[in-house]
């Protein structure tokens, strides 16, 4: 240990050294293959985003204005939040078709409690999220207990919770939201110094986390990112954070809803990649039988993920209601389900389980949101919008499936 720590500059990991070149040495996938196989899915989706933004900017010079970008970030906040839950469920290799309607139902529960029964905002919001958790517990338990495909269970949920939504809303069918704290969720903007301080805090936290990870690897005598690489990463995060704030600050400011979304993305990304629970989600999604033999409580992991998925859908529904200042009979309807699932898939989260990142909820939401927003600016008819969105989703799924086939062909001998 001490010798290892004393020579941190030795760049050779023991496993890779095993000197004599075996027949299979150094057959790592090329950069091209890694991009094609979706391992650099984030890069791919960022490139796609640049292309989309370029096209819409050329078509309409209002697209890249601060005003429109603030609108865009408000539009993606709710969908992105629902998509985080969708990512968790997709990582398991399951699907939840009820997320959109659950988001509408939970927002309605909150709205009815706060507006018609005089509940304060916080208990109302918690009741909404609690409704989501209970729905997730119910659906997840049925999926695991009886071994029914989640597709079928949540399809039943999609219809059933629609009925519950109508029942909760009662005869009027619409509840306007006036409770200040709920309105503020989507109506608060950070401007000037406050916004820049938030950006600075984000960059500082990222820098501390990166340095800590590097320190641990060096202490263990492993290959670690060089200080230069760490500095470049921190600089990149700083440029993005301050850039976003600078652009949004030209208009109304940094929306609280966007801060909430990014906060949730960071927390759930940490849970998936850095905690035991997250590792178990990936293991179950990758090979359920292997996970079971390794002693993982597969049922518990599954049910927990469904609970989180529906709870996050509830959070998304609440943000939605806050932006629209109302819930009605079409809350959680229309194309919300399609968009919430399409986002992560477009950004590289696999429908086959085990592969994907929580960031795909944000990036995919940005792609879908940009397409939708751009077409609105161009005043394209709904017919075109639906067909384009459908085409983009289909293309993303095809890329995912093709990558999987290539893995299956090349992965094993």
């Amino acid at each position, binding site marked *: 240990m001490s010798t290892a720590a004393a020579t941190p500059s030795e760049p050779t*990991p*023991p*496993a*890779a*050294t*095993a000197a004599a070149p*075996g*027949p*299979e*040495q*150094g*057959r*790592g*996938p090329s950069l091209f293959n890694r991009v094609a196989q979706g*391992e650099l899915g984030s890069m791919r989706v960022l490139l796609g985003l640049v292309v989309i933004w370029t096209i819409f900017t050329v078509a309409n010079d209002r697209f890249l204005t601060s005003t429109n970008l603030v609108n865009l970030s408000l539009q993606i906040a709710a969908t992105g939040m629902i998509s985080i839950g969708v990512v968790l469920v997709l990582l398991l290799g399951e699907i939840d078709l009820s997320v959109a309607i659950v988001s509408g139902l939970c927002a309605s529960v909150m709205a009815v409690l706060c507006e018609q029964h005089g509940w304060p905002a916080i208990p109302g919001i918690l009741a909404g999220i609690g409704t989501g958790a209970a729905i997730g517990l119910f659906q997840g338990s049925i999926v695991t207990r009886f071994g029914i495909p989640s597709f079928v269970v949540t399809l039943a949920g999609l219809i059933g919770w629609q009925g519950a939504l109508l029942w909760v809303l009662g005869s009027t069918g619409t509840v306007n939201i006036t409770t200040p704290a709920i309105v503020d969720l989507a109506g608060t903007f950070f401007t000037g110094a406050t916004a820049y301080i938030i950006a600075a805090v984000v960059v500082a936290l990222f820098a501390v986390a990166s340095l800590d990870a590097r320190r*641990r*690897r060096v*202490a*263990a*005598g*492993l290959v670690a990112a060089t200080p230069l690489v760490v500095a470049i990463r921190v600089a990149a995060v700083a440029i993005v954070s301050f850039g976003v704030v600078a652009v949004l600050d030209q208009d109304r400011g940094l929306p609280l809803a966007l801060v909430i979304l990014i906060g949730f993305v960071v927390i759930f990304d*940490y*849970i998936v990649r*850095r*905690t*035991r*629970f997250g*590792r178990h989600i*990936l*293991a179950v*999604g*990758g*090979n359920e*039988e*292997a*996970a079971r*033999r*390794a*002693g*993982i409580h597969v049922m518990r992991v599954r049910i927990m993920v469904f609970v989180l998925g529906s709870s996050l859908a509830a959070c998304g529904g609440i943000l939605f209601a806050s932006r629209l200042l109302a819930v009605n009979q079409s809350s959680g309807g229309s194309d919300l389900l399609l968009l919430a699932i399409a986002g992560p898939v477009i950004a590289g989260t696999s429908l086959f*389980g*085990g*592969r994907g990142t929580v960031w795909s909820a944000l990036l995919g939401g940005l792609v879908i949101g940009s397409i939708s927003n751009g077409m609105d600016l161009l005043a394209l008819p709904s017919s075109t919008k639906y067909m384009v969105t459908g085409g983009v989703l289909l293309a993303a799924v095809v890329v995912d499936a093709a990558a999987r086939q290539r*893995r299956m062909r*090349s*992965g*094993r*001998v």
Partner: protein
Amino acid sequence: MTATTSEPLLALHGVTKRFGAVQALAGVDFDVRAGEVVGLVGDNGAGKSTLVKVMSGIYRADEGEYRFEGEVRHVTAPSDATALGVATVYQDLALCDNLDVVANLFVGREEISGGVGGALRSLDEASMEKQAAELLQTLTVRLPSVRQEVGTLSGGQRQSVAIARSLIGEAKVVLLDEPTAALGVAQTEQVLALIRRLREQGLGVVVISHNLANVFDVVDRIFVLRLGRKAGVYEVAETSQEEIVGAITGAEFGRGNGSGGGGEQATGEATR
């Protein structure tokens, strides 16, 4: 021979297992010592899988004795066997293709470092990667990187990862089910070399295989099952493939000395 004097690590005596009317195992004795590779061979339906499942705790024998390091143990679940130090590598390997080598080695027993606390505590990736690299180096398993996804590895590398994983939990006996079944020549050689290194490290290794050439290549003793009974135990140095085939099929491959099989079996009995 040194093998005859040392105590068996894992020993089964008079193991019987019935499935309804089918007698899968009828009074089978089996043992493996530290630093020894035992081949378990037999025709389809001879009871190899059943015997391995008794050893790994998946099945509980109807009759018979399970001794580990000389003491009688009650092994009624796979976790009991694992706790004793009996690790099993199944034919389907049970790897998560979407996870990297380190994650696969530690799946189900991930290490936790400090962090936020409670369920949010973070995995100790540095420690796990270090141990993984050290373990693979001890076994001279060559991989492009311990951070490579297991799904992108070759069949031989995957088998090596599966075997290495069984050693993370302080295993003393490793049961390998058809470890070379799906592999090419070079990769088979890799895995056989890995099995020899397990022996050098003092583990008891049981290899179930249909491939007699491989068995003769790597094992010290061959244990033949036929129709749920022990058909003989042979020292590799003193037997031939013809003799083993004879024992497996029950045919008399005398070649002029019809007592061969019986004689070896007698030796096998004598060592006990």
